[in-house]
């Protein structure tokens, strides 16, 4: 039956969407995190394409293509560019307190390799920029938290699902869970780029919730949100480079206080 096949495909895409959020939480390499985020963008486009468009089928398909291009193509590209700019950028100012702190932090986690000799400092710093070395909550605990957040999303969404149970609305907890996981990434990760990914996860979750609950928002709102997100990522990319130039690292722990430098 085509109806059930359709529902199954939607389920698979929703499962992939949730799984990508979990994988972002699991990984440490920022490059792999960006890749997982791109996969999630593909899954989000799949959700939009697979929805039962009751009246605006072509509009939804166009939105799906746009979302796919933006969230699986452009945003990961921008983040990757920011990542390479940060990882291989110009050396920070000598005697910078922030650079020293992040270097020693990486040295303690990168083991003997980072502390090999005089050139070890530079190597260790590169490693610390490309990885989320020490999240505020360790990876095992954040995975368990993600499990709890998913259960919470399921519990919260139950009355909503009961209003009108179709395959799409029944998958509503997926969107809510990704929103919560995005919040969690935003709160617990220290690298600026990981935080950008957290913010984008949050946005992906909101978009998915809108799709699953109401077959998407009007096209003009969707366009506005997409441009907003794009702009935010561009600004954050510039900000990351500036942070790197000012502090020698993108660990947000260095941003304790506002000051005129």
């Amino acid at each position, binding site marked *: 039956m085509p109806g059930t096949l359709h529902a199954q495909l939607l389920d698979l895409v*929703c499962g992939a969407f949730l799984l990508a959020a979990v994988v972002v939480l699991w990984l440490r390499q920022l490059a792999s995190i960006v890749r997982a985020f791109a996969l999630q963008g593909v899954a989000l486009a799949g959700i939009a394409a697979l929805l039962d468009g009751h009246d605006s089928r072509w509009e939804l398909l166009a939105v799906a293509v746009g979302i796919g291009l933006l969230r699986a193509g452009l945003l990961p590209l921008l983040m990757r560019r920011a990542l390479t700019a940060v990882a291989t950028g110009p050396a920070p100012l000598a005697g910078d307190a922030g650079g020293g702190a992040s270097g020693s932090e990486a040295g303690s986690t990168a083991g003997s390799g980072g502390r090999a000799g005089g050139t070890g400092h530079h190597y260790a710093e590169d490693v610390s920029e490309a990885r989320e070395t020490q999240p505020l909550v360790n990876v095992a605990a954040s995975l368990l938290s993600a499990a709890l957040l998913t259960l919470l999303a399921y519990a919260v969404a139950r009355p909503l699902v009961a209003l009108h149970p179709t395959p799409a609305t029944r998958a509503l907890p997926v969107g809510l869970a990704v929103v919560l996981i995005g919040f969690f990434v935003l709160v617990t990760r220290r690298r600026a780029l990981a935080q950008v990914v957290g913010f984008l996860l949050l946005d992906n979750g909101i978009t998915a919730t809108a799709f699953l609950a109401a077959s998407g928002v009007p096209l003009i709102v969707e366009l506005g949100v997409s441009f907003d997100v794009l702009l935010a990522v561009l600004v954050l990319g510039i900000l990351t480079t500036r942070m790197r130039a000012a502090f020698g690292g993108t660990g947000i722990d260095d941003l304790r206080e506002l000051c005129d430098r």
Partner: protein
Amino acid sequence: MTGHTTAGAAAMCAQVVAVVAGAPLLTGLMRQVRARMEGRAGAGVRQPWRDLRKLLRKEPITPTGTGPAFRVAPALLVATTAVVAALMPLASTATPATGRSDLILVVALLALGTVALALAGLDTGTAFGGMGASREMTVAALVEPTILLAVFALSLPAGSTDLAAIVSAGLRDADRLASPSGLLATAALALAVLAETGRLPVDNPTTHLELTMVHEAMVLEYAGPDLALVELGAQMRLAVLLGLLATLAAPWGIATTAAPLAVALAIALLAVKVAVLGAALAAAEVCWAKLRLFRVPELLAGSLLLALLAVTSSYFLTGA
């Protein structure tokens, strides 16, 4: 009726014989695949059987000061694994064990073997034995909830934790296996199987460095026929767990009757499935490095999360 029972019993015996005879061959195949991929000639697929024969001919020796736990463990390991092989519907769902092959019982029997070996490691009183036992118990304590949750997710669509019922439901309704819940549960189970059998990201089965050992450290003191039994037990565990994974993820070809021809075909298919799984695992192991012991809980927390997502998604992603 008695004819059916005899045929079922014969199918069950065939399963056990296939597992006992095939397990060393599976290990040999995996070593051979690995050797070829690393550019070595390899010792041949039958080398584990030759090793077992050599060990069985030697004189049994037990270290002084060891108690019954040390002596009983190898036999218990092999016996529990053989019982599991008899219980599982590897070849046919119409064996006399149908209705008694509870998945929770299977997990408990496998855990019994693990605990017996850990006690044996402690019984030797050596530093490495105790260290290996402590590590093995740490891993086992983290794997057990994952396996139980994955089992729960797999048993939800079938409405029963009976393995034969789960496999029959999978045979009837293949779409279930491709649902997010089924895929996540299979992935979680695969990670748990890797940890439970002491394969690469968790434990290195070919290590010669005592400090990195988990399983090997527990069995350092064994020699002769006891060592042969321990090795056979470990190989059978690997074969049984890969068989379980293949049976749950790809149940096609498993006989629903106890007719000899269907059972023979099912066993041949099972051998192919397990061999493919084993070869894929061996090929993957060439590319993987062992995880640091402190990273293992991370991996297992991940697989626990996959299992939990499998359970929850079977509630909210029920398809039609």
